[in-house]
């Protein structure tokens, strides 16, 4: 108690919030990995960790087999990764023109004006916007869908190898969502980036992903080929999540009981055990490791 008080005066965080704990996650080049989970699950934090917007407390990140550590490595990695954020209204500087926003990643590369101009035009045409119409517009003059297209153009203009897409369509209107999803799929086919696609929407994960990883309370609980995870979920949480998602195929939802645990106060053992219908003795004491099941991996004692 005494120590806690002193610590909080000195502004160090007393309860260490374990936002994400991921023992091992590998993404192959050119693949689309969808990270599926609820809002407190840490999927956004994981995405931000991978693009160095957040620093890990411990653990290592390897890019092309090389460890990312120290300022130089971070700056080097930043040149090869990009991120598209959830809220398009927030991700474009309201004071800058579309051209200024999209070409900003090029300013550190020492290109000539003509080269920049050319790259701007091709980036904009890739996202389906006419470069001469939109070059001088500001964010406020664009619709939500157009803003997200501009954000995508900025992410791809410097030809990154790895793009994190953090719920890129969830702030958009239903009728605009599919336009942007089609666009993202098309860009992936043409340019072959590696995508980390963060979403809470399972239908979108099914559409876009090669591999799906499901997160719960800061941990990945299941990972495997998209078809398999989505059609036959293994982890009880994944099953509960899928039966909670409203869908036009059925008129019922079957949610699990209980609340998502706060990351400050996690349950002992498996983090899902208080809500799990199959909880066993071992679940309440020991955190399960990954077990191989039918070509995918699930962190659940049921598959020991």
């Amino acid at each position, binding site marked *: 108690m005494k120590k806690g008080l002193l610590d909080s005066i000195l502004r160090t965080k007393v309860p260490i919030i374990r936002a994400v704990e991921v023992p091992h996650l590998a993404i192959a080049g050119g693949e689309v990995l969808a990270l599926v989970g609820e809002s407190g699950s840490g999927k956004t934090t994981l995405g931000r960790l991978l*693009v*160095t*917007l957040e620093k890990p407390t411990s653990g290592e990140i390897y890019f092309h087999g090389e460890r990312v550590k120290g300022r130089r490595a971070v*700056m080097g990695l*930043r*040149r090869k*990764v*990009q*991120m598209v*954020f*959830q*809220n398009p*209204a*927030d*991700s*474009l*500087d*309201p*004071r*800058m023109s579309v051209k200024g*926003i999209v070409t*900003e*990643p090029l*300013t*550190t590369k020492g290109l000539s004006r003509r080269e920049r101009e050319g790259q701007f035009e091709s980036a904009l045409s890739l996202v389906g916007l006419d470069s001469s119409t939109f070059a001088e517009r*500001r964010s*406020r*003059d*664009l*619709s*939500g869908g*157009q803003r997200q297209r501009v*954000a995508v153009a*900025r*992410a791809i203009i*410097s030809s990154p190898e790895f793009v994190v897409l953090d719920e890129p369509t969830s702030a958009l209107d239903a009728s605009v969502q599919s336009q942007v999803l089609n666009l993202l799929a098309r860009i992936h086919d043409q340019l072959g980036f590696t995508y980390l696609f963060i979403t809470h929407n399972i239908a979108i994960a099914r559409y876009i992903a090669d591999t799906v990883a499901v997160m719960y309370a800061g941990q990945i609980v299941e990972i495997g080929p998209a078809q398999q995870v989505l059609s036959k979920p293994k982890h009880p949480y994944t099953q509960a999540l899928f039966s909670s998602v409203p869908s036009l195929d059925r008129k019922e939802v079957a949610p699990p009981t209980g609340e998502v645990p706060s990351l400050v106060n996690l349950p002992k053992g498996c983090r899902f055990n208080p809500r799990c219908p199959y909880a066993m003795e071992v679940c309440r004491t020991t955190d399960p490791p990954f077990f191989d099941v039918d070509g995918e991996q699930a962190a659940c004692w049921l598959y020991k």
Partner: protein
Amino acid sequence: MENEVPLSGQSGWRFTVRFLVHDRAALAGLVIIGLFLGWGLVEGVMQYIASYTHVASWGWKLLPSDPISLSLKNSLAAPTLSNLNNLFGANYEGQSVLSQLLYATPHDATASVLVVASAIAIGMMIGIPAGYIGGWTDEILMRITDAFLAFPYLVLAIAFSVLLGEGFTTVLLALVLIWWPTYARYFRAQAISLKNRNFVEASKLSGVGPLKIMLRHIFPNSIDPVIAQATLDFGSVILLYSTLAFLGIGLELNYPEWGSMSSLGVSYFPASWWLVLVPGATIMVIVVAFSLIGDRLQDLVAGRLTY
């Protein structure tokens, strides 16, 4: 969600002006401020020529009469519509109140513009790094700001002008010292809320360094609310400047100030009411004018576009 519709071509500078002009009160404010600053500039130039050429009459060429020499015949003349010189009456020395008011305008105009502009400049240089970098930089810069902010402004201005000697420049310096901490706080708050915005993070990911981010993203996006506040502060500076003059602080020899004109009139109050009330009302009208614009701009910044 309902406001998400794009409002093409209905923002920016042109929109701001239209937004102000459409509000009758703000339009009146704009006109008054235009007259005040415009006249301040013209008369200021005339006085500059006078001091440069040593021909005193240049300074009052555009006025109804010489605001400084005595004209005892005219002593305490009441306001009258028939004589422009005595439109607002005359003081004990017989000097026209109108001429003195107009003669003193450049000082007030300069004070408001210069003090607010320098306060913004200093506040920006302290507040933006404090907010954006955070940590110990923030702690240190903010304690300094708080220390300045703690001085009751009138007392600091008094202490300052007593210690540094009388004069217009001293008062300006004191006013800047009083005012910058407020702006440092505004800019800091803005920087803190902006630094976690996605567009700043996106530009971080593009390899843009902190200095450039502060200049290119943080500063331009934090200036709007600051300008709205500054518009109100132009008025506050004039109020404080006149209050100091009323107390006799920072006066220059043979130079009437709105505040000191009022102060000299107090002993003739209420019989010669115009000596206190005319300069007082002038100050009030100009401060109200700045407030009308400032209020409207704050509505705009806060997105209160309808009421």
